[in-house]
């Protein structure tokens, strides 16, 4: 009976944003070094950490959703090919990956020209100048990576407050915790984010 609808509706599973996996102890840099040694599991772990960030970056730069999704695969193919070039003495893995992603997305844009006006793309418009856009992309990249390093109880209240539009009272009801706990975790999460992003603040 299930075949009445699209099999994709039945078979797929998408994790909720508010239940993202907790931060692993393995650093991004270590994963990249393991990828350089051909470890597929490290590649998959890095993909799960960064696929959404890469898609977000591609959407900001390309605008068109379909082409941005195509470029995610291009980025991770480049990561696999270039992992041996990573040198942890020159910076953290996340920054290296950002550079690889940005370059791969630019290359993908060059190889695959934008659709004609007869087939207009689904564009995410921004009003930022190119340098502002680049800075916004990098900030977004770092903020989301920093968010994943927060303890789950802090990350969930931050995500619900900033990305789901729930008030502090609604978050308290949703998570069935006292309002004061929501406020404490929010403040604590903001402080931890500020620490992590210290170089930028």
């Amino acid at each position, binding site marked *: 009976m299930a075949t009445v*609808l*699209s099999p994709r509706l039945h078979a797929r*599973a998408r994790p909720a944003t508010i239940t993202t996996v907790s931060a692993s102890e393995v650093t991004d840099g270590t994963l990249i070094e393991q990828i350089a040694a051909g470890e597929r599991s490290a590649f998959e772990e890095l*993909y799960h950490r960064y696929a959404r960030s890469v*898609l977000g970056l591609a959407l900001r730069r390309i605008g068109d959703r379909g082409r941005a999704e195509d470029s995610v695969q291009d980025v991770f193919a480049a990561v696999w090919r270039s992992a041996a070039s990573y040198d942890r003495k020159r910076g953290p893995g996340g920054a290296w990956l950002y550079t690889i992603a940005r370059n791969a997305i630019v290359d993908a844009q060059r190889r695959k020209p934008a659709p004609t006006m007869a087939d207009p793309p689904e564009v995410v418009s921004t009003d930022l100048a190119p340098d502002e856009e680049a800075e916004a992309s990098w900030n977004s990249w770092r903020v989301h990576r920093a968010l994943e390093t927060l303890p789950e109880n802090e990350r969930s209240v931050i995500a619900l407050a*900033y990305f789901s539009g729930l008030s502090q009272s609604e978050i308290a009801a949703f998570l069935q915790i006292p309002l004061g706990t929501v406020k404490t975790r929010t403040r604590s999460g903001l402080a931890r984010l*500020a620490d992590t*992003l210290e170089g930028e*603040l």
Partner: protein
Amino acid sequence: MSATPPRFDDLVAADDPARERLLAAHELLIAAGPQPELPPELAVAPVPPGARVVPFARRRFTAVGAVAIAATVLLAIGYVVGGRNAPGAPVQTITMKGANAAEATIDVLAQDAAGNWPMTFSVSGLPVLPKGSTYTLWLTKDGKLAESCGSFVVAGGTTEVPLNAPYRLKTFDGWVVVKTGTTQPLLTESA
């Protein structure tokens, strides 16, 4: 339809000694915005270029294949014997999950002659919203909210409401529940 960011003054006390640093983090969060949801096609890491694909052992394939065939036969028998034409029986059931054990079930019923997919939506664990606020069940496409299937409110316990999807369902790729007016999923499909 983006979420309204929280007011900083509601989050941090006016005399908080770290107020300036916290404000900077607050502003960065707002500027960053939510990340896009991955479409199903990107849910799994791609096969790295040049990576060796280990073939499934033939002996294991044979065993797994036999089990799969047996299961299919049993399913077919059950389908024939067990009331495929039962009126009101769902043609598909979708389960959804969210934080803090919130969950929902969508029982999609047979399509009517006009093209509607009536459904029974059963949900528990979502917080009771203030008067005037609602939740909405959406069909998604390419990771974005595409078509609304209706709004609802909850009052604790399990809430069951009839909803409808007057769309070609096969053109969509998922279901989510959001607080109306926002885009961040509170419930998403579970495996």
